[in-house]
Structures are given as structure tokens and as C-alpha cells.
């Protein structure tokens, strides 16, 4: 609400706005200057705000004919050197899967906002869900890794939008903001810092000769510098398995080298990418693990449990993918039981079980969509598993 904020740049100041609006502003603050999308509730407010805001900052907004075109067009825009994004939900994210694979294969930085609603199919238009967690990881065919983030407030929706772009640029990967209808439609206070206080990451540019440029030659950090079309590097980009030139090489050997690197550049940087919040975990005997909107109720449940004398704590996952397996493995050693709260039939809970190697009981507090857990509902699970 600061009067100093200019509509031609970062909207510095205090605002009372929705998660969707905060995401739009976060992406703009991150330097996003291209949005290609197709309207779908509950994500449409992002497209609406971007359609108004992008031209003000010299960016491009285009509403495409469908979600497949939307994601294809943002890949194109990214290769023209712009930070690009789309926002969608439910059926829309399913339609985007093939080109997410192309994004992973061609190491194209872009951000997808998935405002999760309950499915499958048309499901509950357009009530909350968290059923796209596994799809976010491996929804496109083949082996790949990407980064997925999950905010739990309007402020964090803004902050993580910037982080999403920074990670996309740094690791040259699609990043999915795995948010939900509740976070995106709720209205809360948002503080936008001044532009100079926002840390921005940009993709590495090649420095060598433009002649015989190797489009996909990675540096020691496993990430190749990225030239844009029109810069004279004659980039060679294909969805086929390729060598460092980018040329198709249809052999198992080339596949091993490429796919291994695509996965490792994310997985081996898990600790660097990882964002989590721990609340009262120090002496906790029951650990609640949750993310997104559900983590708010989980925090409420931990507070209720503490009042009852139960030593409960919360691990909130902010980074969902790559999964913080090591961290959970460590935390599991200190607790008697784990409760995983999520709005699906049990998706992250399986990852948690894998991480704990069955050292402690892991129970699921599930809702199948349309509504958010109340703190009391999660408390009931905490009480169920605590050691008597």
C-alpha cells in the first residue's frame, strides 16, 4: 500500500492481496517478462494480473489456445532469453506434461505455477487439493528430476516465486510451484521489499567462441551455460537424446551420460536447494510433516498438542522436490512416530516411509480434497500415535 510503488517496476510496499496476486508480483520481481497461459480456475487471477502488469514493465503476455500451446510458447520464450512462466491447475497441468519433459531434456529454465485443485479429472472445480505431488515429480515420461516448491502463506507465495525463478535459472530446469487453491485465494498481508533487496539469479551465458559452440557442454557444476537464439551461437536444441553439441545420438551410452547428468544436477544439489521449516522439533517425540496450506493446520495441531503436554513438532517442507530424504532420515532417529498430513490419499507419506527406512511408525492424516484439515483433525492423529 506504499504510494511510492511504481507500476513500471517492482511493487515495493505493503499490500493486502491474494496468493495468486502475490505470485504474479513475485514473478515480476524475479524478472519474469513472458507469460503464456490458458485460463483455468483457481489459477486465473495470475493470468489476469500478468495481462495487466507485464505490458507495464515491458513484458509480453499471451493467452494461448490451450495449455499445451502455453507451455510450448514459454519454452520458446525462454530460449529467446526471457524469463518465462505459465500458471495452471488440474486438467491444465496434465496437458502440460509432455513439454515439461522437453524442458527437462533441453535444460530450459521456466516456472510453472500449479494451483492445485482436487482431482482426478475435472474433480472438484475448484476446491483445494494436494494430489499433484507425484505428478510434479515424474508426470512426464522418462527419467528426469526437477524442482518443486510449496508455499504456506501469501508472503511465501511471493518469496518462493522469486526463488523458483532463481532456481530455474541457476540449475537450468523447469521449476514447479506446487501451491494450492487455499493459499492462492486467501488474502493476507504481503510486504514487497525494494528492488535492490531482492536477490536475482540469471542463467550462465557462454563466454567462448561463437563458432562451433557446444550447446550442451556442462561446466564442472554439471550445468551448461545457455546462449539465446539470435546471439550468434547457432544453438542446436532437440528433445532427442543428445551429445554436448546438442546433436542427436541414439545410443544407450549417450543416454547414460545425458540422463545421469540431468538427474544429478538436481539430486546432488539437494541440500543446497533444500528449504524447510522446523517448529518445536528439538525435543519432539511426535513429528508432523506437512506442506502448503496443510502445514498451517499442522502447526496449529502442534500447538494444541503441546498444550496437552504432548511433545509434538513440525517439519514443513518448502522444497518438495528434490525430496529432503537425508534430513528426514536424521529427524526420524529422534522421534517415536511421524504423522504426515496432506490433502491426497498418501503421496509424500510414501517418500517419508522410504526415508525413515521403517525405523518409526509413519501414519497418514489424509483428506481427499475440497477442504483443509482442521488443527484438531491432525491433533487426533498425533494423539493416536504418541507413546502411551
Amino acid at each position, binding site marked *: 500500500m506504499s504510494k511510492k510503488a511504481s*507500476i*513500471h517496476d517492482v511493487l515495493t510496499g505493503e499490500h493486502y492481496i491474494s496468493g495468486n496476486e502475490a505470485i504474479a508480483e513475485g514473478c515480476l520481481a524475479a524478472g519474469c*517478462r*513472458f507469460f*503464456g497461459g490458458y485460463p483455468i480456475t483457481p489459477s486465473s487471477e495470475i493470468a489476469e494480473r500478468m495481462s*495487466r502488469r507485464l*505490458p*507495464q514493465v*515491458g*513484458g*509480453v503476455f*499471451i493467452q*494461448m*489456445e*490451450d495449455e*499445451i*500451446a*502455453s507451455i*510450448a*510458447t*514459454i*519454452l*520458446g*520464450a*525462454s*530460449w*529467446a*532469453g*526471457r524469463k*518465462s512462466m505459465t500458471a495452471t491447475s488440474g486438467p491444465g497441468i496434465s496437458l502440460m506434461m*509432455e*513439454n515439461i*519433459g*522437453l524442458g527437462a531434456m533441453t535444460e530450459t529454465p521456466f516456472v510453472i505455477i500449479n494451483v492445485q485443485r482436487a482431482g482426478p479429472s475435472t474433480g472438484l472445480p475448484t476446491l483445494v487439493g494436494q494430489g499433484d505431488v507425484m505428478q510434479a515429480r515424474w508426470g512426464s515420461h522418462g527419467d528426469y528430476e526437477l524442482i518443486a516448491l510449496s508455499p504456506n502463506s501469501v508472503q511465501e507465495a511471493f518469496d518462493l516465486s522469486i526463488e523458483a525463478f532463481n532456481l530455474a535459472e541457476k540449475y537450468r530446469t523447469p521449476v514447479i510451484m506446487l501451491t494450492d487453491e487455499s493459499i492462492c485465494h486467501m488474502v493476507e498481508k504481503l510486504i514487497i521489499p525494494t528492488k535492490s533487496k531482492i536477490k536475482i539469479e540469471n542463467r550462465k551465458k557462454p563466454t567462448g567462441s561463437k563458432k562451433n559452440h557446444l550447446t550442451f557442454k556442462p561446466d564442472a557444476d554439471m550445468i551448461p551455460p545457455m546462449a*539465446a*537464439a*539470435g*546471439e*550468434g*551461437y*547457432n*544453438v*542446436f*536444441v*532437440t*528433445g*532427442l537424446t543428445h*551429445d554436448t*553439441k546438442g*546433436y*542427436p*545420438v*541414439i545410443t544407450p551410452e549417450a543416454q547414460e551420460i545425458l540422463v545421469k547428468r540431468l538427474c544429478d544436477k538436481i539430486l546432488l544439489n539437494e541440500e543446497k536447494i533444500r528449504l524447510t521449516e522446523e517448529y518445536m522439533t528439538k525435543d519432539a517425540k511426535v513429528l508432523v510433516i506437512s506442506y502448503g496450506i496443510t502445514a498451517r493446520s499442522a502447526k496449529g495441531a502442534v500447538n494444541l498438542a503441546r498444550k496437552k503436554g504432548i511433545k509434538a513438532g513440525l517439519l514443513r517442507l518448502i522444497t518438495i522436490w528434490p525430496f529432503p530424504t537425508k534430513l528426514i532420515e536424521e529427524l526420524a532417529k529422534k522421534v517415536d512416530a511421524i504423522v504426515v498430513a496432506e490433502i491426497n490419499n498418501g503421496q509424500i507419506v510414501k517418500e517419508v516411509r522410504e526415508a525413515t527406512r521403517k525405523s518409526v511408525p509413519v501414519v497418514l492424516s489424509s483428506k481427499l480434497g475440497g477442504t483443509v484439515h482442521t488443527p484438531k483433525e491432525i491433533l487426533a492423529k498425533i494423539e493416536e500415535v504418541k507413546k502411551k
Partner: protein
Amino acid sequence: MTISEEKVDDTILEAKRHPMDYLLRWDRLPHVWCSGCGLGSVLSCFIHAIAESGIDTKKIVVVSGIGCTGRASGYLDLDVFHTTHGRAIPFAIGLKLANPELKVIVFSGDGDLFAIGGNHIIHAARRNADITVICSNNFIYGMTGGQLAPTTPMGAWTSTSPYGNVEPNFNLCHLVASAGAIYVARWTSLNARRLQASMVEAIKKKGFSFIEVIPPCPTTFGRRNDYEEGIKMLEFFRENTIIRHGIDPGDAELNLGNKIVVGKFVDKEDKPTLSDHIARIQLFAKRR
């Protein structure tokens, strides 16, 4: 499909260099296309057209989808993108809108552009997206073994129409012209010089331009439809092609046994493109 990584003796090659070689990726040749296929000639017309257009090659980007024609981009020493099946056009629009300085050309096949990608091409034409689309129409899915395409003429034999095709085919030029394309032409690969001239015109045109080019496909289409050899199909083109500039593309259907009507069907005056409109909006929003 194996890619040779062997070192080639440059001095020997140097002597054999063709004036157009600078636009080709030598290290990617030989190409994947069958003997008798017309795509090589089409690609040759294309590189000549690029040179003739005088456009800075640094700013030319070629985008392909999947299929035989989709491989064309991969032989060009330009910025090239081989994208997913059917999605070359929205990818190209993203490139163009994000950097209006680029000259973005989509080079792909009939199945890619008009079956799986059919929705995108009509919308690109409707928007007057500032791109050129070159569609090689071989009436069939070549790369996957000769299956039915929306361009397969009624009655033609394919591996998924073993009793003969029972569906009417799209008239590509008519479709894109109806959707708003400002430049529409059709040629066979035998009309090499006219094709090349047409490509230069299309590339230099502002707005959505479209060229349909018909190459012989002896391996998958011809073999099942009495044109076992490329030369036989070319002979058919020579004897049965009629040039009719400016006719209503609706009157230029492609049917088995009929004459092939080619020519420049549509060449409208420039009108504001999608990029122009977006630039105008940016200017308006910035002033407020």
C-alpha cells in the same frame, strides 16, 4: 540414424564446398531421408532462399516438430529447435514474441502441423503471428512407417487404412487462408525455382505466411499407391501440375488422380502482426 563422430579431413572437404555449405551442419550429414524423397530438394531451396532473402542469418531461427520434415532443422547451421510433436508453432511464437528481432521459421510436416498441431496453426494464422510456416505435405506419416494422415487423399492406401482411406482430407492452403494467413502458396518439390522464390517472399513477408510443398515420398506413400519410385512421382508432378496464381485455395483440392493445382494463392497487403499489437500495448501501458 547413427551419427558419425569420426574426424573428417577438412582439407579434402574444403575443395568440395558448395557456396551454400555455410548454412549446413556438415557434421550432421548424411541426412536420414530415403532415396527418392523430395525433402533434400526442399531443404536446398530453403537454404538458397535464406541466402537470397539477405536476412542476417544470426537472426534466423528454424523450429521443427517431429517427423521426417521435422529433422530438416537439424541440418541447418542456424539457431535450430527440434521440439515436441505438433508444438513447433507455439514454441516459435514464444521465440518471436520474446525477441521480435528474430526471423522465426517453422519447417515441419503435414501430420505434425495439421493433425496433432492443427489447433495451433489455425490460431497462429488467426493471430497473424509474425512467423513463416513451411509445411512439407507427403500425404502420410513417413517416419513412423506410413500411417494415415489428415492429408491422405480419400481412397489412398496407408498402413492404418488397409482398405483405403475413407476420410476426406484437409486442403491445407484453404484452411490457413480461411484462418487469416496473409501469404499462402503451394508447390511441388519439382517446382524448385518457383518454390525458392516463394520462400523468399514468404520469409520477407510481415505476418503469418504459409507454404505447402509436396515432395515425393516413394517409401511410405508411393509404395502403397503406385508410385514406388521417387522419379515416378516426380513424373506425375511434371505432367499433372497446373500453376494457377491467385485462385481461391478452396478450389485447389488435392485428390488422387486429379491435377495438382499449385501457385501463389494469397498475397495480402501487410497488416499489423501479433508482435506489432503487443508492442503497441507495451507502449500504451508504459505511458500510463
